């Protein structure tokens, strides 16, 4: 968890390797058996040309980064808004990164506005967007 929160602070990144086995595991855990994720012959015949990871699997990695940075504040007062720019595929190495863009105070409560991105090993953006986290401890906020 971050010990200090300030504008410009980089969030510790999360790095994950995507494999078909992990995608299959996620399909079983989530119940999402869409063949675009798990059926290689079906996926090969679509415009995507092969299986892709569930968007929600990639978002789980985004959420992991936010949890590591902000602890339970994320699960109890977080907001996420993302776009899926391109698919994550088996063999990809994903790096989720983020930065605190700004900290604002509304009605006595501080919020960290974060920029988020998930890129593959070719630095292509898989997911981009933003998150807002309600900061529960004022001690952690460092003002410039």
């Amino acid at each position, binding site marked *: 968890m971050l010990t200090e929160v300030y504008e410009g602070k980089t969030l510790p990144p999360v790095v994950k390797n995507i494999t078909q086995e992990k995608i299959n595991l996620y399909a*079983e855990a989530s*119940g999402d058996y869409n063949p675009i994720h798990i059926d290689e012959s*079906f996926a090969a015949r679509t415009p995507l040309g092969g299986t892709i990871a569930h968007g929600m699997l990639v978002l789980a990695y985004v959420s992991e980064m936010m949890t590591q940075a902000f602890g339970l504040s994320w*699960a*109890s007062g977080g907001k996420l808004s993302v*776009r899926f720019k391109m698919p994550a595929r088996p063999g990809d190495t994903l790096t989720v990164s983020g930065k605190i863009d700004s900290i604002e105070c509304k009605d006595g409560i501080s919020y960290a506005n974060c920029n988020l991105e998930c890129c593959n090993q070719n630095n292509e953006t898989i997911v981009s967007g933003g998150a807002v986290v309600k900061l529960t401890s004022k001690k952690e906020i460092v003002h410039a």
Partner: protein
Amino acid sequence: MSDKEISKTPISYEELVPGYEFPPVSYELSVQLVSKYAVAVESSANEIVPPLAIAACAMNAMSGELSLPPGVIHASQEFEFFKLVPIGSVVNCQAKVARKIARASVHMLVLELGVFDENRERVQSGKATLVLPGQGANAH
């Protein structure tokens, strides 16, 4: 991903209209379910259910009520988390069609989700934009 309260013939994309509300579905976020999820996403869950696990369960619960063609993909997603949910909780998922968008051969569906705990307090809300496969993908 069981414990669905309602099971009936799923509604198809063609039948959906903006404002359509899916039958609410309740499910238990059991230790087994959350553990399986945590393994799949290479994470850990102690006493609190990861918020994305709740979301994944909600989307799966709702998918039983909806029949979409194979090959649907996610275009965008929004979430807002309101409170912590202990493992073992029973939550209720409500979903409705916010928009249907058709541009040339591209069809999109915007779904709004709300998840509530046993005290009927909102746990999380979300909005998913899904892209349905075009003629190329549908042909397979």
